[in-house]
């Protein structure tokens, strides 16, 4: 039985243990490090949509650990509107190796935890060997590569990794009522919640229901448990997690209650009907699922044939339907207003994770049946999946605009008192966050939609002003409103990386003053604008919230590590009992 990283736990055995063994967990972890380590440390992710956003958040914690009020975006916003744990870890590590490398380290840890989590989760449903293949398959998931290198969704991947590691403990608690499992599962779940609220609210439910269902199915196995006990323990764990999350993320809940998201919905391609746009369909369906699509018939057939796999099949299917976004009306009907806030590529990612045990089972059957040919086919399919996702990084026609040097902009803002005014970037895409990370000046724009309180944003269906033109009339109306109130916000400098915006700036009274990066970037100024002053806001967190924010989320992760390392695992004695038994087995398990 593998015990790598001290994260293994006892799993039920309901199949005859195959004679051939799967890959050991340490080897799978090494494979994950070998595949994703070089990609992350080569900084492939820096051109992704959200990486700079996460680095920006981490940079604030690196400088202001106890003060979540960040003046650099939206003329001031609270970082309590986004769970902080992954950013705080990045902030700590960044003092040693810098922000970019800290991101790579935290993300790589997330990948390792995900692989371990999938292995442990898969062992709830399939044998060890298939679980090891499931974990290997997870490394090559197109959806994982898509989220790591194109979307830059650090939080989604790390939080999912923690949740999948909590689930086996959750099962163990439901079935056996072991206190150690409860503490470990609870603390890991809290750490996952402290990484990403969306995964907690939506993903955890989708992950947990199949596990509870499985525990219910298994209740008659040794030791027998009543249905009420299983459900009661599940509810107790849920309540405990809800209460813990309520405390750990209290500043987040207070911020959301004080300023519910009422802004006009901001369009996102993952909410569209993927059948009506080839590019969207490829980006949000073909690339994430990759060659897993070929295994869909197997997943549905095997999942419905085996009683113990049915909860997983249904969980996968529900998540799959949600991942289709606006292709079916189900997500909108089920989620209501939340449909317009969420993006749905994360559901597709979760669906692929839930499908991993099936992939492991398929791989085991293929190898058993076709030997080397089967292994080659499964290996080639895995490589094709990640290859497609990585190739799509360059082929995607809507990849983020990058490839220009923002350092001159940062230097301009940081010198000669220019930081006394606010600034705006236009046509910078996700480089907006990079400028924000390294300048001391404040912008009226920002990349985090849910933190925006300025009416120039919330009254229009627009994301970032830097990409205003892509939001059509709403985007340009929002930009006009912001420029019209330049004096109010001390918005003096505008940096343009897209000449599309030049006419509006010129007609509105801005004058070009400098060019950077060989003319790719132009700086515009309006001289009548007074210096920026603090914009009064009721969203500034009080000091006690800053103290909580700087303490509790980090504490959950440290306690989770402590519990996992210190509390010993209950181990199962290896061996197969032949039937009819020649000797009387006293107990199936031994401590």
């Amino acid at each position, binding site marked *: 039985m593998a015990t790598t990283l001290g994260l293994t736990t006892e799993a039920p055995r309901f199949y005859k243990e195959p004679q051939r063994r799967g890959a050991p967990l340490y080897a799978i972890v090494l494979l994950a490090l070998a595949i994703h380590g070089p990609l992350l440390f080569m900084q492939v992710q820096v051109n992704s949509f959200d990486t700079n956003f996460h680095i920006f958040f981490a940079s604030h914690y690196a400088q202001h650990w106890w003060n979540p009020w960040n003046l650099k975006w939206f003329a001031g916003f609270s970082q309590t509107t986004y769970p902080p744990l992954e950013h705080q870890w990045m902030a700590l590590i960044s003092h040693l190796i810098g922000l970019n490398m800290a991101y790579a380290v935290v993300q790589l840890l997330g990948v390792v935890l995900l692989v371990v989590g999938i292995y442990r989760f898969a062992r709830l449903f399939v044998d060890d060997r298939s679980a090891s293949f499931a974990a290997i398959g997870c490394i090559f998931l197109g959806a994982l590569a898509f989220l790591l290198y194109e979307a830059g969704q650090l939080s989604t991947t790390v939080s999912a990794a923690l949740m999948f590691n909590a689930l086996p403990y959750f099962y163990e608690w439901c079935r056996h009522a072991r206190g150690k499992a409860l503490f470990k599962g609870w603390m890991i779940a809290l750490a996952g919640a402290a990484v990403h609220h969306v995964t907690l609210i939506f993903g955890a439910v989708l992950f947990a229901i199949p596990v509870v269902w499985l525990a219910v199915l298994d209740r008659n196995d040794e030791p027998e448990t009543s249905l009420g006990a299983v459900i009661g323990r599940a509810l107790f764990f849920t309540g405990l997690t809800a209460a813990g999350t309520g405390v750990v993320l209290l500043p987040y809940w207070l911020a959301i209650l004080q300023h519910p998201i009422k802004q006009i*919905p901001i*369009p*996102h*391609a993952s*909410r*569209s*009907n993927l*059948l*009506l*746009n*080839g*590019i*969207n*369909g490829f980006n949000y369906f073909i690339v994430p699922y990759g060659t897993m699509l070929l295994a869909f018939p197997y997943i*549905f*057939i095997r*999942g*419905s044939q085996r009683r113990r796999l*049915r909860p997983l*099949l*249904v969980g996968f*299917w529900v998540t799959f339907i949600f991942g*289709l*976004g*606006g*292709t*079916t*009306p*189900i997500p*909108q009907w089920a989620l209501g207003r939340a449909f317009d806030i969420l993006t749905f590529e994360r559901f597709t990612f979760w669906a692929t994770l839930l499908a991993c045990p099936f992939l492991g089972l398929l791989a085991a059957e293929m190898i058993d049946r076709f030997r080397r040919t089967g292994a080659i086919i499964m290996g080639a399919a895995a490589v094709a999946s990640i290859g497609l996702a990585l190739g799509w990084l360059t082929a995607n026609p*809507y990849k983020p605009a990058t490839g220009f040097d923002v350092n001159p902009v940062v230097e301009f803002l940081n010198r*000669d008192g220019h930081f006394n005014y606010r600034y705006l970037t236009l046509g910078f895409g996700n480089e907006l966050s990079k400028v924000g990370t390294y300048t001391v000046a404040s912008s009226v724009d920002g990349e985090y939609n849910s933190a925006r309180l300025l009416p120039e944003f919330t009254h229009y269906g627009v994301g970032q002003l830097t*990409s205003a*033109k*892509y*939001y*059509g*009339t709403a*985007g*340009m*109306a929002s930009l*006009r409103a912001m*420029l*019209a*109130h330049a*004096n109010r916000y001390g918005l003096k400098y505008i940096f343009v990386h897209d000449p*599309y*915006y*030049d*006419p*509006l700036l*010129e*007609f509105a*009274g801005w*004058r*070009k*003053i400098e060019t950077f990066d060989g003319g790719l970037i132009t700086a515009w*100024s309006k*001289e*009548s604008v007074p210096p920026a002053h603090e914009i009064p806001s009721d969203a500034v967190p009080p000091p006690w919230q800053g103290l909580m924010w700087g303490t509790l989320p980090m504490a959950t992760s440290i306690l989770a590590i402590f519990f996992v390392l210190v509390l010993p695992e209950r181990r199962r004695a290896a061996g197969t009992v032949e039937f009819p038994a020649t000797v009387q087995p006293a107990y199936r398990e031994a401590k």
Partner: protein
Amino acid sequence: MKLAVLLVLATIAFLILGFVFPVHQASTPGIVSGEALPGVGGTGNTPEAAVRSLLGDVQAHDWSQAYSLLANANDVDKEAFIHDINGNYGSLRTFSSLEGSGTRVLNQSGDQALVRADMHWSTAVGPIYEVRELRVVQQGGNWKVVWPLEKQATVPPQVVPVNYLRWDVIYRGARDDWGTQNVDSPQVRIVSMNAVQHGNTLVVVGEVVNEDTVPAFVDMNAILVGKNGQDLDQENSFDKIQHTLLPKQVSPYRIDFPGFNLSQVKSVRMDAKAMLVPASADPVIAVLDQHEQENVLGNKVLSGNLLNESGRTVNIAQVLATYYDSNGKVIWVSDGYVDRALLPQTPEPFAVEMPDNTVGKVQSYRVTVNHYIRQQS
């Protein structure tokens, strides 16, 4: 197996429901909508469907498909058709995309119909609404659109001498910001100011003059002062002004205060900020044939022609119209952008709306023109 069959059937049913109850959201940033499945969202065979299909192709930038829907393709060159819709010479239309459209059949008889197309363009300076009445004819059983191509006049090769005044400014240093020279600001004066109520918006209109002998860059700000002496709101003229004023030049301005009412206001504090800037009197854009008329929707507009008298193309022109009452008082300022480039020596039509509350009060009007030239900017 029952479960697998059930889930597959449910998936198919949900996918079909996706077409029956489509999710409505605005177009996704950076992504042009289109079709992945052949036949989904097809054209239909009615005059209105033909126009809708054409506009859909324009929205998706599928020019070949749009061109194939023209009844007069033999008379209309494909390049000219694309330029007519998508613009050329760096005009405002080249900074535009069709965001939405509506169609209505005005009349239909036999194999001919007249369809009104309301087009909503998203442009670099804000939304533009365009109305075209399109003739649709039936050809070979299919309805096709007769595209009313407006041919651009071509000017013979010629030399245009430039002898207008130009003012250059020597800056203090390369690292100094524009406008921070150690020189006095040009003298500008607010000639008139008038606060009017327009719907739920309080509007301040007037004129400002550069009284100096050097060019001035002018920005107008206004602060509403409430009955109790507190400042209610501050706004500026934004693009409703000619920012660069040559010596003795007069510009209208308009400052909008949405959501405010005249009854709330005790006074308006005006502030004209002026700075010395380099400027040129070139290009000169003449305004010809100004007259009031009604547009196809029956609204009153001030229309005319702009003539670019220089030898350079003006990419984008903005028309500012000032309306005066019988006492010479400014009662309204309206503006509009011309979506075609002003080619040298070539008249280009314009029209700006006159609000209903000014009709009957307007005694005279004056049109001034702002411009944007890509090469200079």
